[in-house]
């Protein structure tokens, strides 16, 4: 893999098996060995792309076209049926915010637990904890249990941890709708700052403007294939045009 590449995706195909009955018991496995009914849904069909270090890339496409699936493949929660993914550097994903939070523990304790799940060591977390608390703006609540937080506060804390873990590659899935308008802007500015520091960013967002403001490239996925990729403004124009016509038909 090229040294200045952050992500290389080569001919990946992803199928989901959709079982009509989710049977895992022995009876089912023995009795219906090859007869468990399922349908295979091809979500990504021979997709290839590459992303340079420090580049910002937006993934666009209609609902269910496989944007989240692509991010999950990049973060290695799931694996492709065929093809190859090469990643250069530490990945942090803002896909499911707040997974692994413990409601009965305080905000501060959850920062430690959550950052550990991102692969940080104790020392690294100690050095970051104040920055994380400052970013979340939850000074007065940081030592109360997380279950007493509002949804917005909860998301703010989760975002603050995820964005402060010093990753080389940041994967973001439609989570910029965090907190109130002012906090959203703060998150957005933070992303620009991180990007300016050389972090590679891959975003899925409904807001095409946000992608245009951060990314150098957009990848448009349609029917499991890459329909177009290139300069965001141009691609978005084609995309909007297509969607308008698509809906009229």
């Amino acid at each position: 893999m090229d040294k200045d590449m952050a992500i290389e995706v080569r001919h990946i195909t992803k199928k989901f098996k959709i079982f009509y009955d989710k049977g895992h018991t022995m009876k089912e496995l023995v009795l219906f060995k090859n007869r468990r009914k399922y349908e295979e849904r091809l979500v990504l069909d021979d997709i290839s792309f590459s992303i340079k270090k420090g580049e910002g890339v937006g993934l666009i496409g209609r609902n269910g076209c496989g944007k989240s699936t692509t991010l999950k493949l990049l973060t290695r929660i799931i694996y492709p049926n065929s093809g190859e993914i090469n990643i250069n550097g530490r990945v942090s994903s803002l896909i499911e915010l707040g997974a692994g939070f413990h409601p009965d523990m305080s905000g501060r304790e959850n920062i430690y637990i959550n950052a550990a799940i991102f692969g940080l060591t104790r020392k690294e977390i100690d050095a970051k904890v104040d920055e994380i608390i400052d970013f979340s703006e939850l000074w007065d609540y940081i030592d109360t249990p997380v279950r007493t937080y509002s949804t917005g506060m909860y998301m703010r804390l989760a975002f603050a941890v995820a964005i402060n873990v010093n990753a080389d590659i940041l994967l973001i899935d439609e989570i910029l709708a965090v907190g109130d308008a002012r906090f959203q802007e703060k998150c957005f500015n933070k992303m620009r700052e991180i990007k300016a520091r050389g972090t590679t960013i891959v975003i899925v967002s409904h807001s095409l403007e946000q992608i245009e403001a951060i990314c150098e490239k957009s990848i448009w996925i349609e029917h499991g294939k890459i329909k177009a990729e290139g300069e965001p403004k141009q691609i978005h124009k084609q995309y909007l045009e297509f969607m308008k016509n698509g809906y009229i038909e």
Partner: protein
Amino acid sequence: MKEIYAYREMIFSLVKRDLKGRYKGSALGFLWTFINPLMQLCVYTLVFSQIMRAGVEDYYLFLFVALIPWLFFSTCLTGGCVCVSSQQDLVKKIYFPREVLPIAFVTSQFINMILSFVVVFCVLLISGKGINVLAILCLPVIWIIEYILGLGITLIVSSVTIFLRDLEYVLGIIAMAWQFLTPVMYPRSLVPEKFMGLFLLNPMTPVIEAYREILYYKQIPELRTLGHAVFMGVALLAIGIVVFSKLKRDFAEEL
């Protein structure tokens, strides 16, 4: 391997939480770690010195020094099988090396066993049986071997259970049968010659024997026993690593 080391803080934090949470909300709290084995000891003493005479000198000690390590292994089988599936929220949503979960589970059980050994030592001293300090120095070796064994078995059962849910229930019976097939409650000399091959295939046989040699017979364990145990432990861990890494890719989709 390097990656698991990078995630060490996650392992610590899971272990700490498990140990802290174990007896949370109970009046005696952490003391239960010590009370539990003590109570068991009382029951065994009562049964085997008063009701069922076993014909082995100090049978309750003979049993107790083998039972504590056995319980660790048995928990790896019956509890370890759900150590990944019980964290499905994390597994489905976040990337981390999946091995972290079984490692944390086994480590937490292991620490619990080491704490139980405080009771074992106390009982050996108070009962007048005494301990052989030189032999005790071999104990950490056998601890490490058993840890490796426990980790191997947990890697296997935790990954297979995700694809075969019934295993969780079958393992209770397997653990019971396995206990009877291991010289926990009887000396190996009782085993008929024709079954000896099977007994030597059982990775827990040399481990239990080594504990007993050290603590009950107060001897430095035979090198043959130790070598046998090391070989079995490493073999089982290798199988565990292979099975787990084959299956782990599909965890998130199966859960």
